[in-house]
């Protein structure tokens, strides 16, 4: 098929070799090594022999682990639809070639380029009791202030608010890109049929960006399952572990309690949950009518 000068040659692979070495050393090997570790009795200094499923049994019998699983699931189930919903709203609202729309896109994406430590610092200045922006606002309104970061129920909520604020840029940009790919004749045809704005939205726009909406949801599920920095820095998982996500559980096990085997086992379980959730979501949403 290929012209003679585009022949397949092993020497051509040399160009990929430097990357492949790094890829294997720092991604493939750690991935496999992690599975191996999860079956070992291990701390940060060494391995003390094969223990079979012991680490997994310890994790699965740990009430704190299940609490972190519940927290993470709740967090994903609430934040992902909100992120997709607001992303869709912003996509529709800012899909115009005006300076104002471009400026607003810039504003809504700006938080995404900040690091998690800046984002959490900003939101702590909003949430801290007494001195926080919300606290001042509550006082001004004569309301009872809330200890957002230290009250059960509110702490995970606060982490969620900061997360949505931080992550909204990506769904918006992806949905905007999809909206701009919709052929204009579809809208012209809808206009000729005198279709209402809502009808045009449900019959033309939504079916056309369906694939992107699924992709955005999948990306967000994978990302939000990995919630870590926001929870660690804003609430440190508290109070009573009610805002501790799975990654923070793993971090505690491996890098604070030095129980590497248990941390590795919990990592593999989270990896499995993410795979199942992402594939399940994809399977559910990609069935049904296609246009």
């Amino acid at each position, binding site marked *: 098929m290929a012209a003679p000068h585009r022949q397949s040659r092993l020497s051509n692979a040399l160009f990929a070799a430097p990357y492949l070495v790094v890829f294997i050393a720092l991604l493939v090997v750690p991935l496999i090594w992690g599975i191996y570790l999860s079956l070992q009795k291990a701390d940060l200094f060494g391995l003390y022999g094969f223990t079979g499923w012991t680490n997994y049994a310890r994790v699965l019998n740990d009430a704190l682990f299940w609490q972190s699983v519940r927290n993470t699931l709740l967090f994903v189930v609430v934040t992902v639809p909100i992120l997709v919903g607001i992303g869709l709203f912003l996509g*529709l609202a800012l899909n115009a070639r005006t300076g104002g729309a471009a400026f607003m896109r810039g504003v809504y994406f700006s938080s995404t380029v900040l690091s998690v430590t800046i984002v959490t610092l900003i939101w702590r200045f909003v949430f801290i009791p007494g001195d926080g922006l919300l606290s001042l606002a509550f006082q001004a309104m004569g309301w009872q202030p809330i200890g957002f970061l230290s009250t059960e129920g509110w702490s995970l909520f606060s982490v969620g608010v900061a997360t949505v604020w931080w992550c909204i840029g990506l769904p918006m940009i*992806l949905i905007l890109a999809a909206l701009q790919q919709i052929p204009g004749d579809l809208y012209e045809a809808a206009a000729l049929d005198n279709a209402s704005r809502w009808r045009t939205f449900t019959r033309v726009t939504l079916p056309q960006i369906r694939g992107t909406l699924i992709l955005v949801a999948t990306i967000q599920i994978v990302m939000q399952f990995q919630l870590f920095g926001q929870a660690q820095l804003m609430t440190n998982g508290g109070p009573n572990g009610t805002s501790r996500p799975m990654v923070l559980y793993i971090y505690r096990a491996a890098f604070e309690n030095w129980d590497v085997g248990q941390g590795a086992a919990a990592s593999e379980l*989270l990896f499995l949950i993410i795979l199942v959730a992402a594939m399940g979501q994809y399977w559910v949403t990609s069935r049904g009518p296609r246009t």
Partner: protein
Amino acid sequence: MSATTPIQHGHSRTLFWIAVAVSVLMFAPMAWVLVLSFTDNEALSRGTEAAFTGPYTLKNYTDIAGNSGVFRWFVNSLIVGAGQTAGVLVLSSLAGYAFGRLEWPGRKVIFVIVLFGLAVPEQAVIIPRHQIFSTLDLHNTYIGLMLPGMSLPFGVFLMTQFFRAIPPEIDEAALLDNATRWRIFWKVLLPLTLPAQATLGIFTFLFAWNDYWWPLISATDKDMYTLTIGIASSQVNFAQTEGLGFLAAQAVFAALPVLIVYIIFQKHVVTAVSGGAVK
């Protein structure tokens, strides 16, 4: 024509103005921290209402200059960001050429395996990585901070797409002249990928600058903190901190470089995040 016109279709002014109104929620927290950073620390310690009344000062910023910690972390972040970006650009360009432009046995299978790497979450590899770097004594070194980011497949994926998009006629002549693969890569194709290099480079730099988990566990020596980790360590004892104004100034100081890079190179950043997913 039809590729550009749809932008206006189905667009509603009402939605736009709602989005403008809601953007207050994006602005307000940032504006609050900005105002705090210019407010006198002494006054803030009596209550943050002082942010609305003053006195205002630049002292919180001049204190950063006097605080060698913050400045050193800033330089560390620059070094790690620049090094990681250079590494990603070199590795991804070479690999992008090999995957997108050349034929070799196993190319397709290996490319699919690399793409699977996109789906591996950090927590699945970070514990073994930490052990590998301990064994090699690479913790608390710049190389140790740069290396893990170079293994991410995103850059290879992006560069492969760019190399593939170059029309075949471009290197046809050179191939017929029997120029070496390296010469074609270096003289003919690489110059054409410069816009892509810029996109990937800016994206990688932001990614490295903002990275949290890996430097958190690898750079345990205070002198090797990146700015991200340094700021995290400052906010751990939020209540007993040297002063809310100083802390706010640190946040602004750390956010400014990325915001400036973002404002200047907005198009590249947006291309990078959407280019990988939407074609």
